[in-house]
C-alpha cells in the first residue's frame, strides 16, 4: 500500500477518501443505501449510539478496574459495523474478532448479558468463561468473537459450507481487521469460499492500525479490497465513516451471496479513537491524527447531520435516542454489577456434551 500521511491538515481530504482510491484495481464503487426508510434510519442511528455508549462506559468501568483482563473498544468504527450488520437477517451468521463488542451488539445482542460477561459473572453470555474477547450468542447467529486474529475465517468457511449443504439461503459475514488480512487463514478461506461459491461476506474494517502497526506498512498491494481479484470475487472499497455507504455496499454483497453467487470482500475505511486496548500508550500515532478523525469523520456525527438535513429526525428525536440508549446501558451495567459471580467449581462445567 502506498504510504498515506494522516496529519491534521490533510484531514479534510479524508472525508472524500481520495487518498484511498486506486482506480483499476477496485470494483466499481457501490451505491449508498438511500432507499431505506425513516424507521430504519432511526434504528441504525440507535444501534450506532448503543455501541458508542456501551463502549465508552465499558472504558470507564475498565478504568475503575471493574472489568478484569483487557478490552478492545470500537469507538469510531460504528458506521462500518452497523452498516454491515444492517444488511443481515436474524438467521444469518456473523463471526467477530477480539474487538467484538460492536459486531455483537449490531447483530442484536443484549448489552446486559454482555456487561455481565465483561464482569466475569455467571449471568454473562458465556457464564463468565469467555470475557470480552469470547462472546457469542448462537441463538442470534453470533458464532463468536475470537481472540486469535484471523481465527474466524476458517470457521466461517464451515458455516458457509453448512448453509450450502443444508440448502438454506442464509449468509455468513466474517469481520476482520487490516492486520488480519495478512494471515494465511484469510487466503485459505477466501479461496475455498470462492471455489465452492459459499455465501460469505468478508468485511475488513481497515482502521489504519493493527495494534501498533500501520496498515500502509504491513499490507502490500493497492488495497485490501483489491485482494478480491486473487480469488475472482467482487471487492468493494467503501467509506467506513458513512453508514449508508457501508450498508449499500454490504447489501450488494449479501444479495450476491444469498442468490448463490458466492463470496465478496468489502473493505471499509474506518478509525478507532481509543488505543488498541484500554491502557495502550499509543506511541505509534499522534493526538492530532486522532483529533482530525473525530472532527471530520465521526460516523455518528455525520449520520446525525445527514438525518437533520434530510429532515428525517429532529434534534429532539436525536436527543431522545441518546437518552434512551443511556438509560438502557445504565440498566445493563446495573444488571451486570449486581449479578453473582460464578462458583469456582463452575470452571469444571461446559467442557463436553457427553461425559
Amino acid at each position: 500500500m502506498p504510504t498515506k500521511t494522516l496529519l491534521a491538515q490533510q484531514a479534510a481530504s479524508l472525508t472524500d477518501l481520495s487518498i484511498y482510491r486506486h482506480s483499476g484495481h477496485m470494483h466499481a464503487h457501490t451505491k449508498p443505501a438511500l432507499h431505506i426508510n425513516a424507521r430504519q434510519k432511526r434504528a441504525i442511528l440507535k444501534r450506532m449510539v448503543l455501541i458508542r455508549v456501551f463502549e465508552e462506559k465499558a472504558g470507564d468501568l475498565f478504568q475503575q478496574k471493574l472489568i478484569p483482563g483487557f478490552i478492545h473498544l470500537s469507538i469510531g468504527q460504528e458506521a462500518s459495523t452497523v452498516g454491515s450488520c444492517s444488511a443481515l437477517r436474524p438467521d444469518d451468521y456473523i463471526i467477530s474478532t477480539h474487538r467484538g463488542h460492536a459486531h455483537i451488539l449490531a447483530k442484536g445482542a443484549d448489552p446486559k448479558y454482555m456487561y455481565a460477561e465483561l464482569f466475569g459473572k455467571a449471568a454473562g453470555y458465556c457464564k463468565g468463561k469467555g470475557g470480552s474477547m469470547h462472546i457469542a450468542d448462537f441463538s442470534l447467529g453470533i458464532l463468536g468473537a475470537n481472540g486469535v486474529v484471523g481465527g474466524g475465517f476458517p470457521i466461517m468457511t464451515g458455516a458457509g459450507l453448512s448453509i450450502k449443504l443444508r440448502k438454506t439461503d442464509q449468509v455468513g459475514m466474517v469481520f476482520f481487521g487490516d492486520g488480519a488480512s495478512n494471515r494465511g487463514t484469510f487466503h485459505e478461506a477466501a479461496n475455498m469460499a470462492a471455489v465452492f461459491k459459499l455465501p460469505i461476506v468478508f468485511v475488513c474494517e481497515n482502521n489504519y492500525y493493527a495494534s501498533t502497526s500501520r496498515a500502509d506498512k504491513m499490507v502490500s498491494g493497492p488495497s485490501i479490497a483489491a485482494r478480491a481479484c486473487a480469488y475472482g470475487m467482487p471487492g468493494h472499497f467503501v467509506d467506513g465513516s458513512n453508514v449508508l455507504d457501508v450498508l449499500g455496499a454490504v447489501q450488494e454483497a449479501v444479495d450476491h451471496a444469498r442468490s448463490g453467487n458466492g463470496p465478496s470482500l468489502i473493505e471499509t475505511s474506518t478509525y478507532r479513537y481509543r488505543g488498541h486496548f484500554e491502557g495502550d500508550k499509543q506511541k505509534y500515532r499522534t493526538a492530532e491524527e486522532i483529533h482530525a478523525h473525530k472532527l471530520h469523520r465521526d460516523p455518528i456525527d455525520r449520520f446525525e447531520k445527514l438525518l437533520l438535513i434530510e429532515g428525517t429526525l429532529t434534534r429532539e428525536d436525536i436527543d431522545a435516542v441518546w437518552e434512551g440508549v443511556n438509560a438502557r446501558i445504565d440498566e445493563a451495567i446495573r444488571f451486570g454489577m449486581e449479578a453473582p459471580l460464578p462458583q469456582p467449581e463452575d470452571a469444571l462445567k461446559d467442557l463436553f456434551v457427553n461425559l
Partner: protein
Amino acid sequence: MKSRYISCSKAISEAIAEEMEQDETVFILGEDLVAHGGIFGQFSGLPKLFPDRIIDTPISETAIVGGGIGAALTGMRPIIDMHFADFVTTAMDEIVNQMAKIRYMFGGQAKLPLVLWAPDGSGIRAAAQHSQCLESWFVHTPGLKVVVPSEPADVKGLLKSAIRDDDPVVFFQHKSLFAQRGPVSPEPYYIPLGVADVKRPGAHITLITYSRMTYRCLEAAQELAGQGIDAEVIDLRTLKPLDFNCIAQSVSKTRCAMIVHEACLTGGFGAEIAARIGEELFDCLAAPVARIGAKDVPMPFSPVMEDFVVPQVADIVACAEKTVKRKRL
C-alpha cells in the same frame, strides 16, 4: 450372524456408510477423497454412494479444519480427513484454540459433533514429516477426545461412536494397519469411547498399549509365554476418556506394568499412564513401571534406521523380561 474377516480400511468405510445412511448431516471434507476414495483408499465406495457428501478441497488445512468447526456449529456432523496426521500442525490453531475451546469458552452454548480423522505412524518409509504419532498433544488439550484403535472391529465400532458423539473427537488411524484384517460383525454396533479392551489376559505383567503397538505387544506376549511369562495385553482404544479402571484392575493383579507406544518416548502418553499408576497403585507395584516408545529423534527415512527407532517385538520382549525379573515379592 457370523463375523467376517475385513480390513481396517473396509471397517472405516462401512462405519461411515452406516452413519451417513442414517444421518444426512454426516459428510467428509478433505483433500483427494473422491478420485481414489481417499489417499489410502479408506473411503472406497463412499463417493459413489454419497456423491454430495464426500467433498474434495483445495490444500488449505486451516479452512478444512475450520470448515469442520463451522459446519459442526451450524447443524452438521463433519468428518475431517487430515490426509496425514503430521499435517495437524498446519491447523493447530483451529484444533486447539478453536475446536477444543469453543464450547467451553462460550459457556456451553455450542456443540461440536466433529471427527478429525488422521492417519498416523510409521511403516511406509515416509520419513520425518509423514510418520509421526502426535496423540499426546491432544490428550494434553482439554476439550478433545482421542481415539487410537487397533483391530478392525474396534475401528468400526469406535468410529461410529465418534461420529455420533456431540464433542470433537480426534481419531488416529495407524497407516500400517489399513490392510490389517480381523473379525467384524456384519450387524451394526457401537463401541463406547472410554472403554479399554483386554486383548489377552495374563497374570505376570500388564502390557498397556494402543494402535499398531497392540499387535506387537500380542506377538511379544506370545514369545514371552514361551519363557513362562504370562503377559496381559490391554488395548486402551481411547486415550481420552481414559479407562483407568481397566488398567488398575489389571495392575492390581499383575503388580507390574509396562507401557508401549510408537510415539517418541519423552513426553509421550506413556508418561501419563506411568505417572498415574505410580500415584494410584503405588502400594501394589512390585516393579518400576516400564515405558517403551520410539527413540527421541524425527523418523529417519532409511528402513534400517526407522526399524531401530520404532519399538520392535524384540524390544518389548526384552523390556518385559527385565521388568518381570525385577519384581519384588
